């Protein structure tokens, strides 16, 4: 088994390296193959192969076994889901959400203020929905998205309460003794959001 793996790998690498015969020398063969196979005895060409000299640790990879271990049995999953749903409906705790806006992530709850250094199209006073939710949680549960949670599962609503500018920032560069000096004053657009509500619906197969 071990020897057949090694020969298989060797032949594949030979096929690959033959493309490079124009540019590469025999050194290429040595480099690649020495990394794949811990060979003590390696001759100048691929064809001459001393199988007894090459030792490769055998790997028993039972894919079915691995898959069985990685996937949670259905009854365990259903138990967890039903517990989470019960908690969502019965225990109306304060919820938090991790939300992705403008290249930043915020952990927010209802009543929070958020500042984004960007211009938002919505007018002051408008309600907007923050759709990119990475995580949501309450007292006793957390729902973690991979990487985002479904839109049907979570609703986060916010109000735009202010759209201003930052105070004047200065971008200054200097290289001494080179006569290079740059002084740029700029202001960024600033938006402030007030988080109004975070709602979670029950967890189903679809969301």
């Amino acid at each position, binding site marked *: 088994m071990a020897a057949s793996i090694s020969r298989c790998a060797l032949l594949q690498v030979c096929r690959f390296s033959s493309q490079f015969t124009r540019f590469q020398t025999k050194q290429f063969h040595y480099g690649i193959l020495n990394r794949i196979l811990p060979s003590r005895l390696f001759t100048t060409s691929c064809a001459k192969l001393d199988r007894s000299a090459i030792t490769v640790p055998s790997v028993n990879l039972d894919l079915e076994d691995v898959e069985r271990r990685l996937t949670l049995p259905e009854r365990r999953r259903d138990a967890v889901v039903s517990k989470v749903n019960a908690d969502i409906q019965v225990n109306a*705790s*304060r*919820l*938090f959400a991790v939300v992705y806006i403008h290249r*930043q992530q*915020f952990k*927010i*709850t209802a*009543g*929070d*203020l*958020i*500042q*984004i*250094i960007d211009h938002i199209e919505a007018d*002051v*006073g408008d309600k907007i929905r923050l759709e990119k939710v990475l995580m949501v*949680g*309450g*007292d006793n549960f*957390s729902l973690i998205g991979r990487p985002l949670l479904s839109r049907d599962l979570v609703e986060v609503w916010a*109000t*735009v*309460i*202010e*759209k*201003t*500018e*930052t*105070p004047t920032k*200065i971008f200054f560069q200097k290289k001494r003794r080179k006569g290079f000096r740059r002084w740029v004053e700029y202001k960024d657009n600033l938006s*402030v959001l*007030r988080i*109004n509500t975070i709602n979670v619906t029950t967890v189903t197969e679809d969301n």
Partner: protein
Amino acid sequence: MTSRSQPSAFLRSVLQNGVGRYICQLKRITFQFCKHSGQSRGVRDYIENDLVDFARKNPGVVVYVQPHQKYAQPTLVAEYLNGNLRKVEALKMSKDEIKTKVELLRAQSGLDVVRMRKPMHTDNPTIQGLWNPFTNKASHLNIETFPTKNPTWKYAERKPTLRLEEPNEDNTSNN
């Protein structure tokens, strides 16, 4: 001009604005300009064309217009619900520039424009409880005495890399 030498503040709003209804923070805006000076031309154009639309769209904002010779350099004076006053020089501005400036004044809250130390503010920083070293650990550790025979983790056992020969009973070696 370092940020440390300039004033800074934490993010806040005026009287929980946005929690219930949003309320426009601009209370009063005054256009101080001259009827004849060239620098006031933009303000005059704005007043002729766009001011009435602005006033209709924002019925909660009181609009005053003060034409006077002393206002040869025109200004926009904005007063806010928290009592702050902002004066913006409008000299040599075009009508469109004044329009964007007025919209900016309307969307501002009246709080001082300074560096915000944190991009968020929350009154409820924790929901699942602050982390402490016993969070997510087995509860038997609460009554455990240390040193314990059942540690939660321990260093991996290290096997010796070199096995030295044990000397024989009469202190001779086999080499």
